Structure formats: structure tokens, C-alpha cells
């Protein structure tokens, strides 16, 4: 098994609260992995640790075999790991096009970065392409704050894609989204996966997860409970216990 991104033995506490304990997760290259668990089980915290937004007390995060424990979010993104947020985050005062341009990676000297116009014509072209891919091209000049909820999610995703990351960590991509759009999202992810991208998806929508993911990890109270194919996980009684016992209602 060739893991592209993995967490091993991660521990994280906030003050007195132990959010993650000996948490391990491994995402094989080219797969779509799912991460589920009741509310408060630590899914977003694990994402934060993996992408450098939080430091873990113990444990290691590896990307393509190399340790990225403690790396800054900037560096993690530069290596090819992109993530979305539970509550869609955008640069609301920038235009849709500008939102995409922020993510275009360009390695250039300091002086040029100040002197040159934001986004060469090649970059703008690519950004517009990306916007067409998610169907937002006609809104390129609008402030991102004017977008509807679903459009914002698409823009957040498009911003990541323009940098061509190897791995995408999606935090509840279908939250609050209508079924028609969920369908399209699933297709988009499959397309990108076929093109070689790896995914790790946190979700509460069980249909979505079970239908899409090759492998599912279940988190409960900060620990990895079970890992396996969707069918295996679905059949595991411990998982049902975790949901009914500890957490919230879900579409189970």
C-alpha cells in the first residue's frame, strides 16, 4: 500500500480537553478515502493537524513518505495538499477571479511580485478555465461575497484545483447543498480522481460517503475506531454504537 498522506499516532489536546488520542489514518495514493464519526469525534481537528493549522502533541504526519509534522499551512499547500473548510471560507471582498488567482503558485523574486500585475494572461486564462469547470465563469468579476451558498462551495473548491494539488482534503463538502448539486459534486470528484487526484473527505452524509469512497475510517472521541471498505464499516456494530451512544443524529 502506497500511502500518499498519512497520520500516525496523533495526539492533540486543548487545555484540558483531549481532542485526539493515538489517531492514525492512511490515504492510499489515487484513492478516495472517507473520514466519518459523530460530532465532536475530532475529524476537523485531525484535518487541522494534517494541514499544519494545529500542532499535535505527539504523532507524525507524512506526505509521500516525508514527514510534514509541524509544517506551516503555506508549506503544506506548496507540497500539494489542499483543503476546504467546514464553513466555506473565501476572500469575500475579492472578486471570484481574484479568489482563484490568489492560489496560483508562482515562484518569483520579491521585486517582480510587487511590480508585476496580479495574474499573467496565462494564469488568468487558467483561472477562467477553472471557473468554467465549476460553472462560475460568468461571475468572474463579482465579489465573492455575492455568491450563493452552493456557488461559494464551488469557488472554494476551484481555488484549490487551480494549484493542481495531489491531495484534496474536503471538510463536509455536501453540507447544506441540494441533492442535484451533490450529484454533480460526486461526479466532479470522480473525474478528478480518475485524473489522478487523491481525496480525503469528511462527511456526515452517509450515502455520499458510502457511494464514493474506496475506504472509510471511523473516528470516535478522538480515536480511530474502525477502518475498512464502506460495506465493512457499515456492518460493524461498534460503529453504530458510536453514533447512537456518543454523538448526534445522522443520516444513517
Amino acid at each position, binding site marked *: 500500500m502506497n500511502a500518499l498522506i498519512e497520520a500516525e499516532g496523533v495526539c492533540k489536546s486543548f487545555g484540558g480537553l483531549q481532542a485526539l488520542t493515538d489517531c492514525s489514518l492512511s490515504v492510499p495514493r489515487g484513492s478516495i478515502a472517507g473520514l466519518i464519526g459523530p460530532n465532536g469525534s475530532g475529524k476537523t481537528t485531525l484535518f*487541522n493537524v494534517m494541514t499544519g*493549522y494545529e500542532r499535535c502533541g505527539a504523532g507524525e504526519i507524512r506526505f509521500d513518505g516525508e514527514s510534514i509534522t509541524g509544517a506551516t499551512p503555506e508549506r503544506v499547500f506548496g507540497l500539494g495538499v489542499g483543503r476546504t473548510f467546514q464553513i466555506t471560507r473565501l476572500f469575500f471582498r475579492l472578486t471570484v477571479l481574484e479568489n482563484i488567482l490568489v492560489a496560483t503558485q508562482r515562484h518569483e523574486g520579491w521585486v517582480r511580485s510587487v511590480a508585476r500585475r496580479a495574474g499573467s494572461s496565462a494564469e488568468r486564462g487558467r483561472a477562467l478555465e477553472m471557473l468554467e469547470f465549476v460553472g462560475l465563469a460568468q461571475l468572474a468579476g463579482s465579489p465573492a461575497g455575492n455568491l450563493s451558498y452552493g456557488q461559494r462551495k464551488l469557488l472554494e473548491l476551484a481555488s484549490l484545483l487551480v494549484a493542481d494539488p495531489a491531495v484534496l482534503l474536503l471538510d463536509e463538502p455536501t453540507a447544506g447543498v441540494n441533492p442535484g448539486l451533490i450529484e454533480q459534486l460526486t461526479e466532479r470528484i470522480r473525474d478528478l480522481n480518475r485524473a489522478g487526484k487523491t481525496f480525503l473527505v469528511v462527511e456526515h452524509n452517509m450515502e455520499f460517503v458510502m457511494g464514493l469512497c474506496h475506504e472509510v475510517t471511523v473516528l470516535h472521541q478522538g480515536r480511530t475506531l474502525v477502518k475498512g471498505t464502506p460495506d465493512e464499516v457499515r456492518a460493524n456494530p461498534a460503529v453504530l454504537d458510536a453514533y447512537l451512544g456518543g454523538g448526534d443524529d445522522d443520516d444513517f
Partner: protein
Amino acid sequence: MNASSLAKAVIDGILTGGVYALMAAGLTLIFGVMDIINIAQGALIVLGAYMSYVLSVHLGIDLFVGLVITIPAFFVLGVFIEWAFMRRLRDQERTAMSILVTYAVAIIIEGALSVIFGVDYLQLQAPYVNDTFHLLGFYLPYIYVFGFLLAVGLMGVLYYILYRTHFGRGVRGSLQNRSAAELIGVNVNRVRALSVGIGVSVTAAGGMVFGATNSFNPSSGYDLISRLLSIVILAGLGSIGGALIAAIFMVTLEDVVAVVWSPVWATLVYYASLVVVLSFMPNGLFGKAAVRAQ
């Protein structure tokens, strides 16, 4: 410099530090509950000094007795400031905007005081201001001791309010975690208004003591607020206990440096130590580690 003058510096520092602690507590309370840095705190202290001046010189009321009037008045003023200005700030850039807004309020106060009272320096007078009493070989001015006792007394009242009343529990909850406090039904608007009221009312007391122990004029607020800010930031915004400790420590340090080295460098050391501490502990000594907004 000898042991005796050093000891005196320490004692002076503690006594004065206690008063600063009270005012710093007010400032950090306002921040903790409202996410607002009240730059006007310095100007309000000066205003408090002028109020005490008016009561004492024009109405013949004793400085300490006058507090019975000024403290509640300032409480109301604080509530008004919260309602009129602070409430209107949008949540997004609240803190940055609050700095500018309260800075503007401070300037208005300074301007008004200059127009009404002129720019000459004043000092509050009372029989006990200049008299000292003899204790253990030191001459301690009555006013310093009274001021310190007043500060301690008021902080005791503050402690009582915060830890022994229902309202206080709401305030502490807001200090720890505002959204959680809101969720469990704490009346946020009331807590905010009253907290600012309390935070401002302490400036009345602090102003009186400050005015009795220093000569002041309308521009004295700058020096005051910069010290208070340093104390509060050093301690960590939102930590009342930390503010008390930091206040006494910083003021004492300044007094000691003034004696050991020179008064000229003493104030510089004040700010320099702030910068040094913050370089290593950006959240202050007792501040909570930054919790990312998600």
C-alpha cells in the same frame, strides 16, 4: 542608592501598582467581554481626576466621599459608551475599529477638558495628600496608603461581583468563551453593557488617586493609557488576575529602576520589557493561546 531607598521604591511601587492594577483590571475586563480595547481608559481617568477636582474645589466635598458620586456616574457613562459606540461596531473588525473609535472618544474628552479647564497642570488637594505617617522608618504619604486600600477594597468588590453573583458568572463565562456563553442563555447585551460600566467606573476611583498623587492636565491620558495597555498586554488580554500581578510588577520595576539606574530610563524599561516579553510570548504571560476562529 542604598537598601532603604530601594525598599521605599518597592513599597511605593506596590502601593501605586495597586491603583494601576484596579484600572488595568477594568481595561482587561472590557476587552475580555467585548473584544474591545478601550483606548479612552486613560482619558477617562483624567476625566475622573477633573471630576474629583470639581467636587472638591467647587463643592467642598472630600475626595474619597466624592467617589460616592463619581463612581456611579462613571458607571452610567460606561454603559452609555457601550450603547452609543461600541454596540455599533461590526463583529468582523471589531477590535481594530474599537481602537480607533475609543481613541477618538479619548481625543474628544481631552479636547473638552482643555476647553473647559485649560491646559494648566492641577493637582487634587486634601489634608492627607501631603501628610505622611511614619512606619518602620519610612515616611509613607497617607494618600498612597489610602489609595492602595481603596484599590484593594474595590477589587474585592469586583471579585465579589465576578465570583459570587449570577451576573458575575455570566461575565466570567463570556470571558472564557463568548459563543458558549451565548448558547446557554447569558444575556449578552446586558453583560456587555454592565461590564463596560464596571470597567469604566473604576477609572473614577483611579482618577481620584492619580489626581491626588500626580499633577495632571488634559493630555495626561496618553501616558496613562500607554502604561495600562502595556500592563494589560503583558499580562495577556482578558486575564484579570494577570493584570493585577503585572500592574504591581511593572510599576514596582519602574520605581526600582528609577532608583537604581535613573528616572529617565525607568519609563523606557517599562515599554522595553513589554516588547521583550511579547517577542517570546505573543499572547502575554497569562494569555490564552490563540484559538483560531473556524
